[in-house]
C-alpha cells in the first residue's frame, strides 16, 4: 500500500535537492502540482457526475440550450487570473535564476566544454584568473584544436596554473559557482539533476550557468540534449567538498599543472602557426 501511495505522490520522486535556488524551483513545481490536482479532481468530478446523471434514458430528451454569455465570461476570467498569477510568480523566480544580469559574483569560475561524448573542465588555478583562452579572449578562438580545445595561449603567464579535468569536477560547498559553458561540436546540455541546473551549451556561444550548493557529496552530471549514439554515456561526476578540501585539491592540481609545463622552458611558437585553421 505504501508503495502505491509513493507512486501517486509525484513530488516524492525528485532527487535530493542540493542547490540554493533548487528549493524555490521545487516549491513552484509543487504549487503547480497541487493546483493541477485540484483542477483535475474538479473537472473529472464534474465530468463523472454529468456522465452518470445524464446517461441515456429512453423517456428523457436532451435540453436545447445554446449557452450563456455570463457563464462564458466567468469561466474565461477565472482561469485568466489563476494562470496569470502562476505566470507572474514564475517570472520572478526565472529572473532571479536565469537572467544574465542576475548572475552573482563568482567565488569559483569554471569553463566547461561539451564534446561527443564527454565533458572537459578548465579551472583558473589558485590565482583565480584564467589566462588567455577562447573564453577570455575572442581572438584566441582560432587556437582551438583537438589537442587544445580551450584555445589556451601557452605564452600567457596568467594561464600557467590553469588546469583541466576530464569528466569530473569539484566545487566548494556554499559558494557561488559560475560556469561558462560551450561545446566544440554539436549541441549538448549541462544537466545537474540534484542541483536543478540545466542549460544547453551551443558551439560558438558562451553560456552563463551558476549555482550555489549547500551539501557536500558525490553527484552526477548528465547530457540532456541528443548528441548522437553515445549521448547516454555522456556522464560526468562531481564532488561538492568543503572549502578547505577544495583548496587542498586546487594546490595539488596547480602543482601538477606547473610540473607538466615547466619542461617547456622555451616559449611556445607564435600562436598563429600552431592554430588549426577554422575556415
Amino acid at each position, binding site marked *: 500500500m505504501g508503495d502505491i501511495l509513493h*507512486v501517486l505522490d509525484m*513530488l516524492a*520522486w*525528485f*532527487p535530493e535537492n542540493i542547490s540554493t535556488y533548487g528549493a524555490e524551483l521545487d516549491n*513552484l513545481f509543487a504549487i*503547480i*502540482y497541487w493546483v493541477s490536482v485540484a*483542477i483535475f479532481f474538479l473537472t*473529472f468530478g464534474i*465530468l463523472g457526475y454529468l*456522465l452518470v446523471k*445524464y446517461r*441515456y434514458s429512453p423517456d428523457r430528451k*436532451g*435540453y*436545447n*440550450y*445554446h*449557452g450563456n454569455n455570463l457563464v462564458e465570461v466567468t*469561466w*474565461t476570467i477565472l*482561469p485568466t487570473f489563476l*494562470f*496569470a498569477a502562476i*505566470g507572474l510568480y*514564475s*517570472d520572478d*523566480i*526565472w*529572473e532571479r535564476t536565469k537572467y*544574465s544580469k542576475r548572475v552573482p559574483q563568482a567565488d569559483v569560475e569554471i569553463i566547461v566544454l561539451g*564534446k561527443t561524448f564527454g565533458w572537459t573542465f578548465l579551472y583558473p588555478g589558485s590565482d583565480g584568473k584564467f589566462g588567455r583562452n577562447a573564453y577570455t579572449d575572442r581572438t584566441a578562438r*582560432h587556437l582551438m584544436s583537438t589537442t587544445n580545445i580551450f*584555445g589556451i595561449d601557452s605564452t600567457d603567464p596568467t594561464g600557467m596554473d590553469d588546469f583541466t579535468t576530464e569528466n569530473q569536477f569539484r566545487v566548494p560547498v556554499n559558494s557561488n559557482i559560475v560556469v561558462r559553458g560551450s561545446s*566544440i*561540436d*554539436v549541441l549538448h*546540455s549541462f544537466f545537474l*539533476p540534484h542541483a*536543478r541546473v*540545466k542549460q*544547453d*551549451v*551551443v*558551439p*560558438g*556561444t558562451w553560456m552563463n550557468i551558476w549555482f550555489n550548493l549547500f551539501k557536500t557529496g558525490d553527484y*552526477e552530471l*548528465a*547530457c*540532456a540534449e*541528443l548528441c*548522437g*549514439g553515445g*549521448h*547516454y*554515456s555522456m556522464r560526468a561526476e562531481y564532488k561538492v567538498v568543503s572549502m578547505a578540501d577544495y583548496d587542498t585539491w586546487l594546490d595539488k592540481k596547480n602543482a601538477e599543472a606547473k610540473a607538466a609545463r615547466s619542461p617547456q622552458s622555451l616559449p611556445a611558437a607564435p600562436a598563429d602557426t600552431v592554430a588549426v*585553421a577554422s*575556415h
Partner: protein
Amino acid sequence: MSTATLPSTETEAHTHEHHHELPWYRKYVFSTDHKVISKQFMLSSLFFLFIGGAFALFIRWQLAYPGTKIPLVGSILPATWVTEPGSGIITPEFYAQLLTMHGSIMIFFVVIPLALGMFGNFCIPLMIGTDDMALPRLNMWSFWLVPPAGLIMMAGFFTETGYATAGWTSYPPLSASIQLPTFTISGQTLWLISVFLVGFSSIMGSVNYVTTVLNKRAKGMKLFDMPLTVWALFITAIMAVLGTPVLAAGLAMLFMDNFLHTSFFLPDNLVTNSKYFGGGQPVLFQHVFWFYSHPAVYIMILPLMGIVSDVLATFSRKPVYGYKAMVFAIAGIAFLGFIVWGHHMFQSGMNPLLGTTFMLSTIVIAVPSSIKVFNWLGTLWRGNIKFTSAMLNALAFVSMFIIGGLSGVFMASAPVDIYIHDTYFIVAHIHYVLFGGSLFGIFAGIYYWYPKMFGKMLNEAWGRKHFYWTFVTFNLTFFPMHILGVGGHMRRIYDPNVYDFLKGLGGINEFITIAAITLGFSQLFLISNILWSMKFGKKAPRNPWHANTLEWAAPEHPGHGNFDMDITVYRGPYEFSVPGRELDYWPQWEQGEAISAHHNTVAVPIENETRTFGAH
C-alpha cells in the same frame, strides 16, 4: 424548387448528377474524389502508424531491459541494427535512429495526415454540402506526395549511416552531418527531403480547404452555420498555410548545410576534422523550426477538437454549449500558437529575457483551452448521453486533454522547465496531448464517420473493447512517464543504468514497457474491425446517429458528386431536442420555422400560427 424533402429514389439523383464512368485507376488510385483521397490518407497513415508503433516498442524494450535480446524478432534484425549479427541487442546508434523515426513518422505521416488529410478531405465538402473540393486535382497531389515522401524517409535504411539520427527536431550541428563529404546522401538528407515533401502536401491540402470553405458552402449556409469540425479544419488550414512555408525554408537551409555543406547553422571554431563550418548560428534553426512546429502541435489537435465537439453534441442530444465561444477559442489558440514557439527553447541558450515573453504568452493559451473544456462539460449538462464507441473516444479526448493541458502548465513555467526540460515529463506531456488527445479524437472521428465512408456500420462491441483496452493501457503507459521525468530521467537515452540517480526507476520503466506492448496489441481490435466491417459490416442507414449536419443528407455510401438532392441550409448544426418537435434532432437541410428565446430554440408549427413556447 423544393429541396426540403429527400428524393424518393436513388435513380432520381443520377439525372442531375451525371458522371462519366472513369477507368479504375482514376477511381481508386489517382482519384480526384475527396472521399477516395480521404480513404487513401487513412490507409497510408494506418500503415505508418503500425511502423511507428513497432519502432516505439523497440525503444521501450531497450529502456526496460537494456542490453538484452529483443524477443521474437531479435534474431532476424538486420546486422546494422544490432551489436553483433544475431545477438538481437540493438546498438546505441540504431536506438537514436529509432527514436528519430518514431517521432517523425508519428507526427508527419500519422497524426497530421489523419487530422488534416483524412478528416479535412472527408468532412469539409460533405459538411458544407458541396460536390467536391474547389481544386480536386491539387487535392489529389496533396495525397500523392505522401507515399513517396514516406518511402524516401524509410529509404534511409539503405544509406551507409542508416536512418536519420538527430531526433524529430533535427537540430544542427548534429543534423548537418559535416563529417560526411559533400553530396553524400545520408539518412538525414533523405529525412529533410521527405519532410519538405509532406510539408508541400500540407500546404496544397490547406490552400484547398480554405478555398473550398470560403467558396463552396451550400445555399443558405453562413460561416456561423458551419459545424465546429469545419471551423476547426478551416482555421487549422490557415495555420498550416502560414506556418509550413517557414518550416520549408528552415529545412531547405538545413538541406544545403547537410548536402552542399553551406553554413547557415554552423558556427566558427568547431573542433573537428571537417572543414565545412563557420559563420552560422545553431539556435537560428531552432527558432525557424519551432515557429512552424509549435503551430504544428495545434494543427495536430485543433481538427480533433472540432470533431469531438460534434460527436459530443450528437450523442448528448444537445447543442454545443457556447458555439461561438468555441469558434473564438479555436481562433484564439491558433493565433497564440504563433507567438509561443520560444517555450521549446527556454534552456537552448536563447536570451533569458525572451523566456519571460514566451512564458507569459504560453500560459495565456491555458485560457482558451479551459474555455473549450468547460464548454464541452456544458454540452454534456442536461443531455441524454449515449455511450457509443465514438462518444467514448470523444470523452477520452476531453479527459486526456485535461491531463495533457495541466502538465503543459508545468513546462510553460520557465523556472520549472529548467529541471523537467528534455526529461520524460515532456515525453509524458506530448503523448497525453498527441495520443490521449489527437489519437483518441481520430478514433472518435473514425467510429463516427465510418458509416458514411464505407456504407457499413462498425462493430460496436469490438469498438468498445478497443476503447477500454486502449484507454486503460494508454494511461498505464504514459502516466508513469511523469514520474520518470520528476526522477530526472532524460529522454532519448539508450541506457538509464549508466546513471546512479536513475537506478530507482528501473521498475517503472519495466512497467511502462509491459503496458506499452499491451497498448500496441490493443490496436488490432481497431484494425480488424475496420477491415472486417468493410466487407461484413451491417449496412449503414443514411443518418445512423440522427445527427443534423449535412453529410448525413448524402446517400448511404455517396458516390462521386456526393449528394442526390439540392441542399439548402436553414439553421445551425446543433438543433437537438428542440421543444415543439417530435424528433429530437432537426437537420440543417430540413425546412421549418423557429424562434429563439432565452438561449433556446423553439420550433414553430407552420400549419397554425399560434407560437408555442417550449417550457424550459
